[in-house]
């Protein structure tokens, strides 16, 4: 009886959506939205995009488990994390353009705090591999002055916090086969084929 009585006060989806959007705006204005995220649909599945106030901090494939990725961001960066698409609009638009073959270079600020030390060096180098080009793991290892760290380069690529945007998919095996990929081998070949077409 009591429960029924107060159900009259409702809390319908429309009101909650409106309030959520208001919270997104207010939080951003107040400087307390440490991590904003949204998802986008692409030919390689649904991608999660997350940004700090400094820039795009994470791109995650479905297979990485978006809920787990968000918990990881809350843990490593800040739990002040909301689904707030506005901050990701430029990145989402550019990724759409990339998959439509209307963009070859991403021009969004990135926040590389999730890649440290050796992995950070690898990630920084990956940014220099141009659209449609490929490099072997061995070439990348040599380029960062660590020619024997081929396997570690592979691990660094597997932990790239910004796949697609930072092109770890352009790093392939010396024999020309595509090799492993954080989004799975099919996603990797899809990206390579897109850029080769």
């Amino acid at each position, binding site marked *: 009886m009591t429960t029924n009585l107060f159900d009259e006060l409702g809390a319908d989806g429309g009101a909650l959506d409106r*309030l*959520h959007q208001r*919270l997104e705006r207010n939080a951003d204005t107040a400087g307390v*939205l440490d991590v904003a995220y949204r998802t986008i649909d692409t030919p390689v599945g649904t991608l999660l995009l997350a940004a700090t106030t400094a820039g795009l901090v994470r791109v995650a494939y479905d297979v990485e488990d978006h809920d787990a990725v*968000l918990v990881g961001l809350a843990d490593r960066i800040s739990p002040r994390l909301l689904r707030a698409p506005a901050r990701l609009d430029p990145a989402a638009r550019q990724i759409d353009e990339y998959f439509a073959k209307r963009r070859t270079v991403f021009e969004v600020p990135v926040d590389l705090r999730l890649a440290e030390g050796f992995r950070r060096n690898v990630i920084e180098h990956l940014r220099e591999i141009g659209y449609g080009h490929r490099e072997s793991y061995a070439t990348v290892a040599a380029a960062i002055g660590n020619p024997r760290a081929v396997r570690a380069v592979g691990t660094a690529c597997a932990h790239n916090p910004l796949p697609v945007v930072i092109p770890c998919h352009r790093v392939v095996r010396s024999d020309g086969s595509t090799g492993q990929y954080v989004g799975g081998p099919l996603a990797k070949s899809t990206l390579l084929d897109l850029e080769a077409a």
Partner: protein
Amino acid sequence: MRVRPFENVVAEHGATVLRVCRAVLGPVDAEDAWSETFLSALRAYPELPADANVEAWLVTIAHRRAVDVGRARSRRPVPTDTLPDRPATHADPAARDPDLWTALQRLPTKQRQAVAYHHIAGLPFAEIAELLGNSPDAARRAAADGLKTLRKHYREDETA
């Protein structure tokens, strides 16, 4: 234990806090109170102990924000017939139930708060007593009296 993303807190508790705000403040001011509650909560969230009762914490913030919103409302100049520019509120079926809010509005403030915090948010009377500045027994009586009056008036309104 890992901290949950604040988005999960909004998803899990947003609806209950909105019902509490509506019960305490009515449909128009409830959304301002909800917004201020969650913005304050987001600001303070990293300092919240991992084992805290999140819903009780939110209701405590909502209680303070509701008091603020209530004060702001009483300071507002002359009420007019013109409704504030919030058209979506009127499209909202829950906010259009004037009878329940009318019945709630007739209750003394502490009864209305005790009813909302206990019967909507499920807070124990010991915690409600802290919010209302009375004893757990007084909080329990306020909730019981409030609910009794509410049922009586709400039924009258329904059958009127």
